[in-house]
């Protein structure tokens, strides 16, 4: 879900300028801490491991740090970065074929269920228990716990460390929300202050308020084209359904599955959430059903919509001078909760791990590499070089690049999402389920199916896919 073709180049250029300075200044630190990995990696010196990961600004930054591992251990790392779909297809095909070309492959949380059920991921427990390989200073308690625990472990076994904490945040135009005329008009109409939405109902009001036709005024300026109150991902596939599922249905108190993993999609809470989903689509641009997770930030960056729910790592590529004319005019906030249900809030996230292929011929050095990546020192460096990023460690929130960021509301929103973020349930038939349910999300959003029909049909699909049994592993 991480394609940022358009913006990767801009971020890569920035990092290319800053990385040499930071990396060169980091050399003395590296020499001080070289102890454990130099010793643990000694038996594997000269070994080459192949790692497949996805290309986003985060990985581009990380790739600058990878040579440090090679210097420290003598283990050579072939670090291959591909786009979102290629990583999924090529990575899964390699694992499922048993060829073992790649020793380690990045899997999105959603891929874990099918790959675990195929038995192609190597558990890490024996390496974690091996004092020669396990870094005593790793401090797993420092990982942001909810995504780490729900992603890296399954059925009592550990399959990875947390690598990428992709998460959704609320994203709005601060210049509009702070405009005095707009604030006054909004208060007159809705009876409360215009501000970043804290509840889904407020998000709906803001969406309605700012949906305007060409020729009307927006913040005192005449509109030369239509303006929309909200933009959401609506394409079939992508993360359309996860947005609906977690940010809406779960916040309304519904869910896809019950505690036993049985389908529970036809609940009144789901119907209510689908009604809101449908209503919000009426305040979105006409092409919403074609919008992918790449299009949503593009629309926001081009100033076509007032607010959105979007992936925070995409925001990093947009809200910067020279990329969007509205850079610096955005505000971020936690994912809005359902009014009255704020204590049980949810936020969509896709925590992801790099796993060792069961067919890997070099599992030990690969384990060392994955552990090294998750180490605090590397994570601190990643945040520093990337001038922010998406942390996987609690301690990273205190990093100067984050505390001193020019975009503090973004990191506060990220933290809020990651505090409650969990991985998707591990389901063998996740791809089939996701494909069918994203179709329903589209149909309901477009008004081609009523919320009641959507809930009923979704439930029937889940029951059929799971065959009356638990849908989870």
């Amino acid at each position, binding site marked *: 879900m991480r394609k940022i073709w358009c913006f990767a180049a801009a971020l890569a250029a920035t990092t290319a300028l800053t990385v040499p300075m930071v990396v060169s200044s980091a050399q003395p630190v590296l020499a001080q801490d070289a102890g454990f990995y130099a010793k643990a990696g000694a038996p594997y010196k000269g070994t080459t491991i192949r790692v497949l990961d996805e290309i986003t600004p985060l990985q581009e930054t990380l790739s600058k740090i990878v040579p440090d591992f090679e210097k420290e251990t003598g283990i050579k790392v072939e670090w291959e970065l591909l786009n979102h779909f290629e990583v999924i297809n090529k990575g899964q095909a390699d694992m499922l074929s048993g060829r073992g070309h790649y020793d380690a492959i990045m899997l999105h949380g959603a891929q874990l269920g*099918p790959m675990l059920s195929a038995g192609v991921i190597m558990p890490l427990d024996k390496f974690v228990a091996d004092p020669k390989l396990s870094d005593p200073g790793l401090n797993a308690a420092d990982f942001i716990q909810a995504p780490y625990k729900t992603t890296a472990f399954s059925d009592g076994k550990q399959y990875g460390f947390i690598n990428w904490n992709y998460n959704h945040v609320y994203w709005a135009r601060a210049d509009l929300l702070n405009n005095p005329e707009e604030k006054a008009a909004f208060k007159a109409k809705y009876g409360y202050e215009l501000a970043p939405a804290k509840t889904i109902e407020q998000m709906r009001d803001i969406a309605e308020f700012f949906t305007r036709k060409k020729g009307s005024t927006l913040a005192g300026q005449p509109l030369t084209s239509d303006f929309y109150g909200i933009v959401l991902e609506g394409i079939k596939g992508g993360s359309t359904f996860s947005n609906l599922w977690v940010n809406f249905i779960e916040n309304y108190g519904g869910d896809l599955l019950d505690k036993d993993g049985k389908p529970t999609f036809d609940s009144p809470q789901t119907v209510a959430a689908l009604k809101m989903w449908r209503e919000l689509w009426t305040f979105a*641009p*006409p*092409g919403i*059903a074609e919008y992918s997770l790449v299009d949503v930030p593009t629309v926001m960056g081009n100033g076509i919509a007032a607010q959105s729910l979007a992936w925070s790592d995409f925001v990093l590529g947009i809200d910067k001078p020279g990329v969007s004319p509205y850079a610096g005019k955005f505000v971020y906030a936690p994912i809005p909760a359902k009014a009255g249900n704020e204590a049980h809030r949810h936020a969509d996230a896709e925590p992801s791990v790099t796993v060792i292929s069961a067919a890997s011929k070099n599992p030990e050095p690969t384990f060392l590499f994955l552990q090294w990546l998750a180490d605090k020192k590397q994570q601190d460096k990643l945040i520093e070089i990337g001038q922010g990023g998406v942390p996987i460690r609690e301690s990273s929130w205190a990093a100067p690049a984050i505390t001193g960021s020019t975009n503090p509301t973004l990191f506060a929103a990220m933290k809020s999402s990651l505090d409650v973020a969990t991985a998707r349930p591990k389901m063998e038939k996740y791809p*089939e389920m996701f494909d069918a349910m994203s*179709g329903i999300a589209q149909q309901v959003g*477009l008004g081609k199916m009523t919320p009641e029909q959507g809930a009923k049909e979704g439930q029937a699909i889940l029951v059929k896919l799971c065959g009356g049994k638990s849908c989870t592993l």
Partner: protein
Amino acid sequence: MASASETMTAAGPQGAGMRERAWYPYLLIAPSMITLVVVSLAPFIYAIYLSFHEAKFGRVRDFVGFDNYMTLLTDERFWNSIGVATTFVFIAVPIEFMLGLIGALVLNQNVRGRSILIPLLFMPTMMAPIVVGLLWKIMLAGSWGFFSYNVLERFNILGETSIFASPDLALYALIFVDIWQWTPFMMLAFFAGLQALPLGPYRAAAVDGANPVQMFFHITLPMMTPLLAVIGLLRFIDAFKVFDTIYILTNGGPGISTETPSILANKMTFEFWNIGEASALAVLVWIAFFAFCSIFYQVAKKRLNAF
């Protein structure tokens, strides 16, 4: 006797030479036959094998008989894909056929600038399908598409939706794109056929006082029938298998409103990793095509004197 002996002596070496040379044609066609078997037949036989097995996540497990076929045949989504492809083919191909034939007849009238016009007309067909997909995405995409933004949204023609976001319109947009891409191919194929027709029958008809319409129906059409049948069949098969442009423009959506068997098979294989059912789908589509083409071949051969 002597002559008989000579004959036998002469026949001996000649017969042996012929026998020795009997393998020669087989040797010549061997490379293409081996390629055909390796590239086409072997994978197809393997697909049939897979279709009778539970093959999930790249692992071939138990023999399941016709279970994969039964699952597909009772799956609404499979029948929806057949319906989508059938609608696509039965609207797109006849329109391409008619427009192509009309265009060919016009071109055949010695229109000025024909040598410039023909390469220009052929441009859509020369484009890679992925380029065609991207081109029409740029034209018709919701909100930012050139046509969508400047026409549909400016005049509020589609209200709160866009072409590819509308389950009612997306398929027809894909049909339009197919017609745009393939009509020139039909036109030029038919034009080449018209150019090859002998002039004698036309001269005789002119002497007999036949008008152009009579000439078309009694001379041109009967003589062109074999070509029309072959081109029509090829286009029919090709249109049913369409994948690239749909993959780029809608990927089968919204919902499953533009999901053809090719798109569904791709999803089953590379998203769901359900290779057993995907193989069964491929085999079913092949059987349907084989039956259709066989019937078409027989009818075209007997009634239309084609092939």
